[in-house]
């Protein structure tokens, strides 16, 4: 209870905290969607932060911009790059806090029928996650809103409201296309679980119509305007390199490290500097083969196959959240240009299921510890340093308490800070690779336990 009342206080207190370029990104989108006609949204060149979310999100920004006009119209000028007046900061921060209500309501909905202790635990685990506070309320993004929609969707499907769940998922993908990687699971689950029995064909048609309708509302106007190619180009900017400027804790981080080590051993220096340059760009590996987006897609899908096959055979509402989390983890570990923030898509669905069993709780704690730690380098300022540590410690103590049982503390080594300026990237590299190892372990564990669940229930 204390935490829940403290949470809004902490969010408000963090209003003046560090903001990343993502703040300017969203301000720019507010400006574009309010001052330009929609035909120009995906064509605008005024800023380097072009619109790279699908149209439904753009319409949301447009709506927010109408409110922004009441706060500080100057933030809506496209040419006002880097504008961050106190009113702008207050408005943007508040919009994140208010859209968080989507997640809060979703957490309430998913936990309302659970027994009291579990209900409180799941609600708090979802709503108070430090990764959300770090990424949304400091760094600046709208994950609360998007993950809220995801949680609503999963919860509705778990309670057999499949059409509504599918509708929300379609909306979600049309707000951030990254969630499309969860599509195969939705497709197979709904086909096998929902579209069966005597109304199978009707149900299938209604699903199809809903999804297509949402996509039509979203992309339709742009298709009609002949802009679809431009929109897709903006949505999938592939000139971005296998790793983000700061490596996500996934397989490719280990791969890139291996390449560097091999290059040193074999005395090949080409491509050595660029992946640690802190810039978002493509680079080629020195020793190991280059990895392109297609390879990533194929590998991710391959990794997802076991879950998909077992869902095909036995679609269980009960294990839907964990299946989603596993799917998200597959695309996190093997995807192209994955952001470390994508770990949130793994953490929040896992939190939904954390109260189900000791195994689930352990899994959640482990992934949460490793995944949240991997986010630390996002906040690199002095002021935020003790804050992120305090958030991490407080939350996980609280989570352990709430879940109240055996807790696996991973032996994650703290990156040693090297003084030499040549190795500035080294602490980040270490964080990514060590976390990646942790994530790999979690992945293997999750896969095993989930698939184990599936096979067991099949035997029943």
């Amino acid at each position, binding site marked *: 209870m204390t935490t829940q009342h403290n949470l809004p206080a902490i969010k408000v207190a963090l209003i003046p905290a560090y903001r990343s370029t993502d703040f300017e990104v969203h301000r720019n989108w507010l400006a574009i969607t309010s001052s330009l006609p929609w035909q120009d949204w995906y064509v605008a060149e005024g800023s380097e932060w072009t619109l790279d979310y699908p149209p439904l999100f753009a319409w949301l920004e447009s709506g927010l911009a109408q409110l922004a006009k009441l706060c500080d119209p100057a933030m809506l000028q496209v040419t006002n790059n880097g504008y961050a007046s106190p009113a702008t900061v207050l408005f943007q921060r508040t919009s994140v806090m208010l859209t968080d209500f989507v997640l809060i309501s979703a957490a309430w909905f998913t936990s309302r029928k659970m027994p009291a202790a579990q209900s409180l635990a799941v609600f708090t685990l979802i709503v108070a996650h430090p990764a959300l506070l770090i990424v949304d309320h400091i760094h600046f993004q709208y994950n609360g809103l998007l993950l809220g929609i995801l949680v609503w969707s999963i919860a509705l499907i778990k309670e057999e409201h499949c059409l509504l769940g599918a509708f929300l998922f379609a909306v979600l993908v049309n707000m951030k296309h990254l969630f499309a990687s969860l599509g195969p699971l939705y497709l197979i689950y709904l086909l096998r679980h929902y579209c069966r029995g005597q109304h199978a064909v009707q149900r299938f048609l209604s699903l199809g119509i809903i999804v297509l309708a949402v996509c039509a509302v979203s992309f339709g106007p742009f298709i009609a305007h002949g802009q679809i190619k431009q929109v897709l180009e903006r949505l999938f900017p592939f000139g971005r390199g296998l790793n983000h400027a700061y490596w996500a804790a996934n397989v490719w981080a280990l791969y890139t490290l291996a390449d560097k080590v091999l290059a040193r051993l074999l005395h090949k220096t080409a491509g050595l500097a660029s992946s640690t340059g802190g810039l978002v760009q493509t680079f080629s590996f020195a020793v190991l083969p280059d990895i392109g987006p297609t390879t990533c897609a194929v590998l991710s899908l391959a990794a997802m196959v076991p879950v998909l096959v077992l869902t095909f055979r036995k679609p269980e509402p009960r294990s839907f959240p964990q299946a989603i989390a596993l799917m998200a983890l597959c695309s996190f570990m093997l995807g192209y240009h994955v952001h470390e923030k994508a770990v949130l898509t793994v953490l929040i669905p896992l939190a939904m299921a954390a109260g189900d069993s000791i195994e689930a709780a352990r899994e959640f704690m482990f992934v949460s510890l490793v995944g949240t730690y991997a986010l630390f380098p996002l906040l690199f300022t002095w002021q935020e340093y003790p804050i992120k540590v305090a958030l991490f410690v407080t939350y996980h103590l*609280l989570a352990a308490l709430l879940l109240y049982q055996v807790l696996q503390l991973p032996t994650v080594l703290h990156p040693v800070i090297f003084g030499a300026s040549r190795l500035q990237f080294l602490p980040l590299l270490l964080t990514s690779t060590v976390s990646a190892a942790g994530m790999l372990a979690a992945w293997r564990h999750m896969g095993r336990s989930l698939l184990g669940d599936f096979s067991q229930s099949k035997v029943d």
Partner: protein
Amino acid sequence: MVVAWVGKQACVAGCIFALAVLQRLAVGVGSYSGAGRAPLYGDYEAQRHWMEITLHTPLADWYRDTPSNDLRYWGLDYPPLSAYQSWAYGRAIQAFDPAAVALQTSRGFESAFSKALMRWSSVLSDILVLFPAVAACAHVFYLRRPTAQLLVLAVGLLQPAFVLIDHGHFQYNSISLGLSAGAAAAIAADWYCMGSMLFCLALNHKQMAAYYAPAFFAHLLGALSAATLSIKAGTHACEAGNARCWPHLLGCGAPFLVHEGAAGAALSRLAPLKRGLFEDYVANFWCATSMLIKWKRLLSLPVQVRLCTAATLAAAAPSMLHQVLRPSPRGLLLCMANSAFAFFLFSFQVHEKSILLPLLPITLLAPQLLGTALGLK
């Protein structure tokens, strides 16, 4: 496994500590009073300035008006322990950001890094002094009542007034308040020596801890002479009490006694009688009634001082008497609260921040006085 091994109560306590630290850090993100407002800025600048003065000027001059130490620009007006604390933190900050505490040139110095350092020093003070003190109080006053202990811990550490003033406005009240709370806990546990020492330290840090002095005096008198209620026993108790207090008072003030005139200068800074009955607006008796009775015009300064003293003592007397006759741990806290309230309402030159003083014992009594504690905020 961790939870089972360490014990559920310890885990909850750990959560509360962690949350309290987080709360302080989060509040610290915001601005402090007087930020960017030249020429005087605010209390944050005062604390920074004291670090500058204690670092760069000789000890004898800390309370004296000299070319390096202009008393009109945030002159030091807390006792020596505050000054030593400023010196210690000043040394630390100087190691990381010397420009922030450089003599003369750092007036109004404001940078992100130095602000972070100042904020951390305040949080550290809390962790080192206030947190253990509140934990000790929880343990001593609510022995064998784990839920009440956790409640006191939560209410004491998450108390918004302490957090906002120390980590927003910017001050170091937690040190003297923590020492006072520790003193109360020690005395309630019959550790009179330790309790006296802690209270003397609190007094040496901020003279406002004197608001609690009548309570400690009355309780000690009552407790020490409890066996035989006679004047002889009472005198003996007073002597015993004095014997314990003087060494500590002297210990802190000793460096000032060495330098001629320094002690006098210090004492005159601590009791700024020239500042008048009250400043600006404060929720006490004199300010509230000043609309009807113009105290400042009616009475001369010495008369005002005497009136205040009399009124304060009169207000604190009943509770003091109760403690002398029937000393008890709960009574000690109540008497502290009463005494602090008496001072707040009737004393000379009270600041609105002094409400923290009655607030501390009331907070520690939270399990029993939940209604009062909530109303007071």
